[in-house]
């Protein structure tokens, strides 16, 4: 019998962890001589107080949904993919190569092609660590960390030596053709006669991200492959006994994970910058870890956590603009969320379990 009811496990523990993380963040803000209340108000105003704020919040949310789903899928196979950052970088390279390869006539053609490029490049970057884990037993955490650095070097090389148009100084690719411009939500709202989110980068990728959440849910809980992934994640010997090949499932789970991380590039490279720049990912790959942990590796949880981090990201930018609190506050909050929901999980869970056991004991007596 479980020690805790399911709702407590799914909702209560992450909520308490989040409250702890926020409380410590408030103490940090106090320690640097600012008001946590004012900071929170500035963040809410800046991120949720206007359609402009929402536009940016949802743009960041889109990034984090993809990287969060990437971490979550791998986690179900009990693989810890820290390589989302590198996989998303490579995804950006895939998008750029495809967007620049043809004079795309219309986005409806460019988008599917770029999605294939993004997913393929991201998946390819996850393939080697996956294969090494499955076949040679090299720890996937270490190899994906190494691959993040290799990706950064590769991207730097590609941008400086190959993709940079002649005569420019900026290590960035040429601008994508007009036809590769993705519809912004602003434009879509305007077509319906609504004025919403002017000058914000949120685009059609947000809708694709929502679809990705549903597809990942279907994959994990409604398909044979998802079952095999979860079985492997729970117990490798049991999976082996059930005729599931650990090598095959490890590689497939990582390919899906890498592909999802790569797909993030549709949002930031094709949807926003419309060219490939250095450090386009801006740490979103790492935030995916916090998002997946917070969201308990469930697509709906990932969506909520991504929204939370989207809010923190946009709010943090506003904070840096209007107060003397640097943007890096968000990094601290992110660290605390990872710490409490991931590493110190038992610190919250153990006392809770004790409380529930005590309550249950009373009920029986």
């Amino acid at each position, binding site marked *: 019998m479980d020690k805790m009811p399911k709702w407590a496990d799914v909702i209560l523990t992450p909520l308490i962890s989040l409250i702890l993380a926020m409380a410590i963040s408030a103490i940090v803000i106090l320690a640097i001589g600012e008001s946590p209340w004012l900071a929170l108000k500035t963040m809410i105003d800046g991120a949720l107080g206007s359609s402009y704020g929402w536009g940016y919040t949802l743009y960041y949310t889109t990034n984090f949904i993809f990287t969060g789903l990437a971490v979550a899928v791998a986690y179900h196979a009990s693989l*810890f993919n820290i390589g989302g950052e590198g996989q998303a970088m490579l995804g950006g390279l895939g998008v750029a190569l495809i967007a620049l390869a043809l004079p795309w006539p219309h986005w409806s053609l460019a988008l599917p092609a770029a999605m294939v490029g993004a997913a393929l490049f991201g998946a390819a970057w996850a393939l080697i660590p996956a294969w090494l884990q499955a076949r040679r037993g*090299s720890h996937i955490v270490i190899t994906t960390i190494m691959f993040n650095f290799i990706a950064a070097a590769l991207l*730097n090389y590609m941008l400086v030596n190959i993709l940079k148009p002649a005569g420019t100084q900026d290590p960035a690719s040429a601008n994508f053709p007009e036809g590769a411009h993705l519809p912004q939500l602003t434009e879509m709202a305007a077509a319906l006669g609504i004025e919403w989110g002017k000058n914000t980068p949120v685009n059609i990728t947000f809708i694709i991200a929502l679809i990705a959440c549903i597809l990942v849910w279907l994959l994990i809980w409604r398909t044979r492959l998802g079952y095999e992934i979860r079985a492997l994640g729970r117990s490798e010997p049991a999976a082996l006994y059930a005729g599931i090949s650990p090598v095959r499932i490890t590689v497939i789970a990582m390919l899906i994970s890498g592909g999802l991380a790569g797909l993030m590039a549709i949002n930031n490279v094709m949807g926003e910058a419309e060219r490939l720049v250095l450090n386009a990912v801006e740490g979103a790959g*790492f935030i995916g870890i916090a998002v997946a942990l917070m969201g308990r590796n469930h697509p709906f949880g990932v969506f909520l956590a991504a929204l939370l981090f989207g809010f923190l990201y946009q709010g943090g930018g506003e904070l840096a603009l209007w107060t003397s*609190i640097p943007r*890096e506050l968000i990094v*601290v*909050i992110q660290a605390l969320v*990872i710490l409490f929901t991931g*590493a110190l999980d038992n610190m919250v869970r153990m006392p809770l379990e004790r409380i529930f056991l005590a309550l249950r004991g009373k009920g029986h007596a």
Partner: protein
Amino acid sequence: MDFATIIQILDSAVRLMTPLLLACLAGLYSERSGVFDIGLEGKMLMAAFTAASVAYATGSPWLGLLAGIGGSMALALIHGLASITFMGNQLISGVAINFLASGMTVLLGQRIFGLGGRTPSLTDGGRFGEIILPFADALRDVPVLGPVYADLISGHSILVYVAFLCVPLTWWVLFRTRFGLRLRAVGENPASVDTAGVSVTRLRYASIAICGLLCGLAGAYLATGLSAGFVKEMTAGRGFIALAALIFAKWRPWSALFATFLFGLLEAIANRYPNLDLGVITIPSMFMNALPYILTVIILAGFVGRAIPPRAGGEPYVKER
């Protein structure tokens, strides 16, 4: 390439390998006791910040060093709490510690100094000076060995020599003392150590404290030896290169010396020749920067000798009841 240039590159390699070596040995203690540590980077960064801040405020690099060790130890304690006491995921804890250091250093730096996360530059009094070994100047004119002694071996800050001394010391502690035997045992088979009546928890906390201490030295060296002050993200992935070196060295102290020297040398060469022209092909600096990571992946793949981590690494020890 003449002899003087080679000496210069080697000298630069020695300076660059020092933080790697200290961090690598730090990771060695932790991982040998069965606690994975991908938070070396964060601990170094925090140490660099606290060391630079205190060295600036007091004008003493020694007080800075103490502060550096303190900053690093605080994070090590969090790692211990998460991975030993609360039996959490050690990798996730390491990730959190890296972000915590990355954010807190800028937040505190901006609050205290208002320079966008930098500390003010340290003057000579706040830094570790170069130690000129005896007779260095007198022996400089001796062919070959003279420059090696005067320019390569002599003239580093004290922490460089400390780092090198830590290698035999670590070897001795791990392989010649009872503590070392237990530490290695607890990383391979904690249950047996527990059965023998030795506390797994206490041993792992001890090794994590040593890890914090050495990361503190590494960070302090970065901020008060190698450079003059702290800048945002100044570790720049060195903690991960140290981790790579640890795997490359297969968790052994002497091999750690060679691995970190190799990686330090690569960095020194990349710094000196941004685009290395080998006649046939030109190697871009990005490749040189990525080489430690690529080499580590190859080692991990087991194509050049297999790297097998301590068996109980990453597993929290649950005492049976």
